């Protein structure tokens, strides 16, 4: 014979178990149910199409993008890993990998206040473009020009343009506070 506490626990288990069973059954029956075994959460970098409201992104070759350096109205964001950033990055660039979100991305967006251009670069043109579009979408400023450097940092380096290296003070925080898979 069950004690009173045991009986309560058993009944609570029955309630929760029934909910779980109903949940699985409902998920299996609905066409838009979540894929249990193959589900992968999207990150800002894996969003193929941010939607109709996504801002236009211009692609500049390094020789053209370098003219934006030194302009206080321009924010440069490096979308690569912290290791690559530490090995070398464009002078004054902020580290903003695609996994960054929350406080780090918020701080980067805050730095866009009063600026007219956002320049994003990565290892290649294609891996910087979704970060640029996502940042532009979050900012929601039609007057903000968004530029991606064609060929990424490799092309910039090959062109012999100004860069710097060293420890990245923000990298640890950006990785710790990331919210999506790399």
């Amino acid at each position, binding site marked *: 014979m069950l004690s009173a506490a045991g*009986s*309560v*626990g*058993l*009944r*609570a288990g*029955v*309630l*929760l178990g*029934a*909910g*779980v069973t*109903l*949940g*699985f059954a*409902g*998920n299996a029956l*609905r066409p*838009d*149910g*979540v*894929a*249990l*075994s193959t*589900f992968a*959460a*999207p990150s800002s970098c894996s969003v193929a199409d941010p939607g109709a409201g996504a801002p236009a992104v211009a692609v500049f070759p390094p020789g053209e993008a370098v003219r934006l350096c030194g302009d206080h109205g321009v924010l440069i964001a490096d979308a690569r890993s912290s290791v690559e950033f530490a090995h070398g990055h464009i002078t004054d660039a902020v580290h903003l990998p695609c996994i960054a*979100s*929350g*406080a780090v991305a*918020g701080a980067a967006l805050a730095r866009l206040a009063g600026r007219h251009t956002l320049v994003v670069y990565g290892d290649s043109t294609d891996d910087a473009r979704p970060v640029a579009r996502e940042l532009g979408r979050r900012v929601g400023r039609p007057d903000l020009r968004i530029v991606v450097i064609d060929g990424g940092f490799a092309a910039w380096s090959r062109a012999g343009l100004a860069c710097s290296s060293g420890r990245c003070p923000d990298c640890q925080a950006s990785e*710790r*506070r990331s*919210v*999506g*898979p790399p």
Partner: protein
Amino acid sequence: MMAALLLVARLALGGLLVVAGALKLGDPSAFASEITNYQIIPSLAPYLAATLPATEILTGAGLVALPRSWRRAAALAAGGLCAMFLGATTLAYLRGINVDCGCFGAGSGPITVLTLLRNLALLGVALLIGLGAHRK
């Protein structure tokens, strides 16, 4: 007086759980993404997204509609859910993860101290109902 307070608490917590569960039913994949963002056990996210809404609805409905002999059990189940929500939101807050709480489906807003206090209050209400039902 106490009986009236318990009735109000039961209806309020039960109703809130039903509404919260129903709002999460809209887009299970989006809800799974929100759970993943907590970075606690990401591999469990799709399973939680599939089962949590129904569990909340059933527990909430149980609190409101089940006979007295089942009320403590429903309160215990609700308390378990509230404790889980409180633990997850507290961990995300302490780790500095800026994540949408997903408490009431999409667009629930970020986790703040108010979110934690609300979850703590809901846990307290579940305990109150459980203890009150015990004394009956």
